[in-house]
């Protein structure tokens, strides 16, 4: 930072800022409306200002189970994230070499991505029912989410390994590193940022998923499904309070983490400069 900035930088910065404002537009409404008075609804006008709905969030709801659904979605998102990173990284390695069925597998992955979600969901629901297996969020719904996040992870891995210079690995191997050591000490560090991206994204995709889960979740709903079902009765600004809280918490966690990382780095850098 700190070096000269071209005009294009400010132009791009403006575009970026506008985009951020745009994606935060609904969030802004959510935040404002979450402070509705006790008689307020989900739309303007505001009927007073209060913290009523934040308090309500921690009480049992009349309809729906936000707490339970939130925990399930969080857990499901994390499991999906770990599996997606692991499986797509492995598959990414596999695709760097030729193997029989590679093309087929690639097209299946693409097909899985583009298949209308509701159809995948219906198919999974029906298949489980036919086999007499119970559907639940950690089984059938997890599978449904993976059909959605894995193609994503795989394609990102393609983009990553695309310009990955095999010379690094060859060098490592020449130095006598085993296959595992090569991956652990050479490949992983290089692709780590992208893996982080895959992780972030697979979690987000899973956490927000509606269509693929709809027929595959079984008895206990995920958070988006629960929220959707809550729409079949009078819904209160409690859901906005949830949105505000989620956003605020995410911000706090992220800012803390980044500050922490920067601080650690500076500390780590200091002795060297001395």
């Amino acid at each position: 930072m700190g070096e000269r900035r071209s005009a294009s930088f400010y132009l791009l910065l403006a575009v970026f800022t506008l985009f951020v404002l745009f994606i935060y537009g609904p969030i802004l409404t959510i935040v404002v409306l979450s402070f509705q008075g006790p008689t307020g609804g989900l739309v303007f006008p505001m009927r007073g200002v209060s913290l009523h709905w934040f308090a309500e969030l921690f009480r049992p709801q009349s309809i729906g189970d936000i707490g339970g659904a939130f925990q399930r979605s969080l857990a499901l998102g994390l499991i999906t994230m770990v599996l997606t990173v692991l499986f797509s990284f492995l598959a990414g390695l596999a695709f760097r070499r030729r193997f029989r069925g590679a093309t087929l597998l690639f097209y299946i992955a693409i097909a899985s991505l583009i298949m209308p979600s509701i159809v995948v969901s219906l198919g999974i629901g029906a298949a489980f029912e036919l086999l007499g297996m119970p559907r639940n969020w950690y089984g059938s719904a997890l599978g449904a989410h993976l059909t959605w996040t894995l193609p994503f992870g795989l394609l990102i891995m393609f983009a990553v390994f695309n310009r990955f210079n095999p010379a690094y690995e060859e060098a490592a191997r020449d130095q006598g590193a085993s296959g595992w050591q090569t991956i652990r000490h050479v490949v992983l560090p290089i692709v780590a940022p992208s893996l982080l991206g895959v992780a972030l994204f697979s979690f987000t995709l899973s956490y927000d998923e509606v269509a693929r889960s709809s027929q595959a979740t079984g008895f206990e709903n995920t958070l988006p499904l629960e929220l959707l079902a809550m729409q079949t009765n009078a819904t209160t600004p409690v859901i906005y309070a949830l949105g505000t809280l989620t956003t605020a918490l995410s911000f706090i966690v992220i800012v803390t983490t980044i500050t922490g990382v920067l601080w650690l780095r500076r500390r780590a850098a200091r002795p060297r400069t001395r």
Partner: protein
Amino acid sequence: MSEQTKTEGTGITRRRALETTALAAATAIVGFPTVLRAQEPVTLRIAGTGVNAYNEIAEKAKEDLGFNIQYTTLVSDDVVKRAVTQPTSFDLLDVEYWMIKKIVPAGTLLGMDTKRIALFDEIVPIFTKGELPDGTKIADQGTAPFEVSFLEEEGGKTFASGATEFMTAIPTVYNADTLGIRPDLIGRPIESWTELLNPEFQGKASILNIPSIGIMDAAMVCEAMGAVTYADKGNMTKEEIDQTIAILTEAKKDGQFRAFWKDFNESVNLMASGEVVIQSMWSPAVTAVRQQGIPCVYQPLKEGYRAWAAGLTVPVHLDDRMRDAAYEFVNWYISGWVGAFLNRQGYYTAVLETAEEYMTPNEWGFWMEGQPATAPILSPTGELLDEPGAVRDGGSYWERMGAVACWNAVMDEDRYMVRKWNEFIAA
């Protein structure tokens, strides 16, 4: 829980004692399986729309019966799908009667043995005979509950034409629906269904996009306009469907509709935000708008109401213990407390006498008899709904249920209707 095990006998008598002797006698004949109490507490999974999946009911059930109640709330469309394709994912189904017509042929429902329902004889005859409690016949256009109330045999896939020992579902709630309006934004009396398509409300009207229900609202409008004459609105011919859809499509192209809604909550938001001033609506949705301090009227119309009903039923997969628990829960459901709770939402309950015992005379007078409130009317959760002196929209039970013109329906030409409805939405 442990307390529940200890006080099993007294718990039941204490509750039962509140009820009339006739009911108590009926209970004595049927009795409850005591074996249930000896084991782990039962968890009943109830799937259905969120319309009556109140956690207050679950808590009360836990208190009275010791059961854990878990709800899966689903969008109406998903209820049918879930019941047909995933019957093992629930222990009790909270189902609307028009859905029953679609689900029963799939053979996933067992039906309810009326011998095990203590208050069977007290259930309003709308469900058992197709008449109002005073003996007058209720409208049978559409999928009237009576037509799909009984099965030939337990677990059967066909409906019986008259009363048998097996009900498809034990009725829980029902209501008479009409149009909701914003009187402050309309500023003149609304008396007929035709107003939904009145160009005066161009871009400010809405209809619900659940074909089985929306088509009935549309039929009420078209019939009132004199544009279409139906032999039976609830079972239209292809020509009648075509005519109805044509009128709707034309209105849509002229920009009559602001939006179509699918969820209860969407209808509340449309109305509360003022995006829409006249639309198909459900009674508690009107209440929800009013609770926000926004004027909203559930407008009685001269052509009458479109009615619906829902009930509880069991899937085939339950073992004896779970089935016993399901029956106990259903018996409890119609024994009064829940009925009063639902009546206070603006719904009607299937067994009126028991519900009355759990309501104050003021509440009963307001919700059921069309009397002016003598004290503030509160929602089940304690919010103020109406001031003293207010009268319920549409008046008493008799005025409202007596003016039912048709029921939510699944028609013989359902497949054609849904296709046409899709074309209307796509137009």
